[in-house]
């Protein structure tokens, strides 16, 4: 729901993440519309092997991914840091059943944030995830994105773990203040 300067060149880290999802044979991608994930969502929607499913709230994705795994498919979830807060209780499903799961989280409330209402959840996203035993990785620079997501996918699906990759706000690009 944010705005990113249309004049800046398209970043390539979403393509690196997309390549990682493809290599891991991700077949369902649940998302809530998000500017930071816009290109990745676009790539997923355009891929005939991936079903991109728009959710009304991020917690729906935890159930979706569990159902996908029950049926033999791998899923990934894309969300903003605010959406992490919506998922916390639902993550007990993944933890209790040891469902593998990967959350790709675009950060808000960090560097360059213009909206103070994003700060409370953004500043506690890592802590909240770690409290419920999600393994948290973080990407600060574009060139790290592909490798980090690969690593998170590998441990999630080999280990039956929940992992999250936090994509820093500096990486995504701060939103412009629009009056």
């Amino acid at each position, binding site marked *: 729901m944010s705005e990113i300067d249309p004049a800046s060149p398209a970043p390539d880290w979403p393509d690196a993440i997309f390549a990682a999802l493809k290599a891991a044979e991700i*077949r*369902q991608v649940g998302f809530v519309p998000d500017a930071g994930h816009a290109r990745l969502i676009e790539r997923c929607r355009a891929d005939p092997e991936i*079903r991109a*499913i*728009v*959710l*009304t*709230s991020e*917690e*729906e*994705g*935890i*159930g*979706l*991914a*569990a*159902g*996908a*795994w*029950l*049926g*033999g*498919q791998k*899923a990934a979830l894309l969300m903003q840091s605010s959406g992490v807060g919506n998922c916390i*209780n*639902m993550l*007990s*499903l993944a933890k*209790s*059943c*040891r*469902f593998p799961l990967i959350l790709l989280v675009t950060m808000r409330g960090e560097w360059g944030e213009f909206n103070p209402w994003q700060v409370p959840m953004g500043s506690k996203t890592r802590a909240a995830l770690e409290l419920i035993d999600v393994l948290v990785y973080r990407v600060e620079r574009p060139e790290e994105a592909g490798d980090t997501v690969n690593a998170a996918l590998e441990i999630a699906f080999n280990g039956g773990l929940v992992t999250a990759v936090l994509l820093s706000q500096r990486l995504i690009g701060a939103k412009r203040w629009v009056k």
Partner: protein
Amino acid sequence: MSPPARGNAPRLDRRAAMRALLDRRGDLLLVTGLGSTTYDAASVGDDSRNFYLWGAMGAAAMIGLGLAIARPERRVLVVTGDGEMLMGLGALATIGVERPPNLALVVFDNGHYGETGMQASHTQAGVSLCGVARACGILSVFDIAEAPALRDFAAQLQGFDRTIFARIAIYADEPPRVLPSRDGVHLKNRFRRALGVE
């Protein structure tokens, strides 16, 4: 405030309703919601193709969606309660967009939260889950309160080819609990083995 909508009385017995749905289940895959629908399914007989929820209230319909998309050649039945469905109402909008042809959502509606002491749910005050499902774009919607309609509906579960939503009006009671395994890892693994994906 408008008077409470009682639905179309009379109402059905929940255990008999679950038996009717699963009587000739064929290769149906079943997901049940937190609470009584899990006990109802277990009372008909435990089955490795049942995935019971013991938590994650509001997730039943979405698990059904992920499963239906993953296994387009199988039919998926979700049976949950009115309280569980109300907690995940957004799922009806998401499912209304995706509309997998092999997914049937059934809500046992007694107008109460059975697990927590039979407090009134929103449906008792007139919230129509069938109305929500229709408004979300689910085209096959059934409101069932009598045994013959239930039998006709159950017969369709073997051959439907578009997303179904059904509300089954049951009366509020608490039959003896039949408790299946609470081990989530076991329930997950045996389900996947039954599908040949583990």
